[in-house]
């Protein structure tokens, strides 16, 4: 069989839970605040807290460009480097072209082990879609991208909250950013803080720094 076909088939089957969540409705609406109920100033403050999360290595390191090379920030260090062992996620973003991410990063709802054991998640391990580029981007760039439906999976502010809740229901990557395994740094706040900040930012009209 053709390699790219295999890669595509694998990618399709593994990414099904992720694409499904685009259509999952309602889970985030409980968190949503009424549009306009949060001031622009408060919305910008919420964004600053969101920015600290999405630019944190724990969250940004797999949001890489089309080159598909994940980034490592080893436990106890702040400097980033490329993932070891020649790893790249390929166009499939799950490593199907070479070695699947799931060879080492298990699909599991069990808690993460202490560093440097590879973290696991309830969703098959993968890079974020290539248009969701965070690593190496400024906060302003990520902000504009997050509210751009062409580059955020077609989501409005409420659908972004759905995304967070759906991912959490699968023990996915987002809540695990705050539970990466002993010895690893975490983004500021908690997952619930992050959901609240996203709700406030959305209700304030998704303001972004210029």
């Amino acid at each position, binding site marked *: 069989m053709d390699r790219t076909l295999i890669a595509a088939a694998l990618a399709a089957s593994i990414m099904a839970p992720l694409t499904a969540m685009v259509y999952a409705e309602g889970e985030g609406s409980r968190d949503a605040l009424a549009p306009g109920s949060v001031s622009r100033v408060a919305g910008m403050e919420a964004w600053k807290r969101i920015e600290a999360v999405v630019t944190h290595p724990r969250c940004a390191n797999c949001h890489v460009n089309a080159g598909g090379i994940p980034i490592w920030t080893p436990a106890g260090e702040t400097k980033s480097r490329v993932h070891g062992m020649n790893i790249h996620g390929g166009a499939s973003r799950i490593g*199907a072209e070479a070695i699947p991410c*799931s*060879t*080492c990063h*298990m699909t599991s709802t*069990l808690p993460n082990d202490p560093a440097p054991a590879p973290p*696991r998640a309830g969703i098959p391990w993968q890079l974020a879609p290539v248009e969701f580029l965070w690593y190496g981007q400024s906060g302003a760039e990520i902000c504009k991208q997050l509210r751009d439906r062409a580059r955020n999976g077609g989501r409005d502010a409420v659908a972004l909250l759905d995304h967070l809740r759906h991912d959490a229901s699968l023990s996915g990557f987002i809540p695990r950013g705050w539970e990466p395994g002993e010895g690893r740094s975490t983004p500021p706040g908690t997952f619930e803080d992050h959901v609240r900040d996203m709700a406030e930012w959305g209700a304030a009209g998704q303001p972004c720094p210029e």
Partner: protein
Amino acid sequence: MFDIVVNGSRHQVDVVPEMPLLWVLRDELGITSPKYGCGIALCGACTVQVDGEAVRSCQARMADVAGKAITTIEGVGNGKLHPVQEAWIEHQVAQCGYCQTGQMIQAISLLKTHPKPTDEDINEVMSGNLCRCGTYERIRVAIHAAAEKIGGK
């Protein structure tokens, strides 16, 4: 109690859900071909197939592989030597041999998705399997030879 199928045989094991598959195989079932090297997925010595995919068994937990089909090097050839094993003998790949069962399982997985692998394919897929003896050159040659054997059949 968990159900596990290893090389076609069904077993029941009474272990904690978090027990790594590697220890289930080695200590509970006495299958010692997968080796403990690092315990953190950095060396590849423990690699086995789970439902046909190469996986680091030190990372796979019993609860996550229950009911799945596990294949170790004993099970890859259905009673005969697998072409990868034949190539490993012909090219005298193993030195101490500790990492080699993991290397072969990974190579078998590589050849499924890349029936005619280039050197670059081999570098990409095999880079997570370390060999302290430094048998990499012979591993590469043997993988090419195994690809020929499989392709010729």
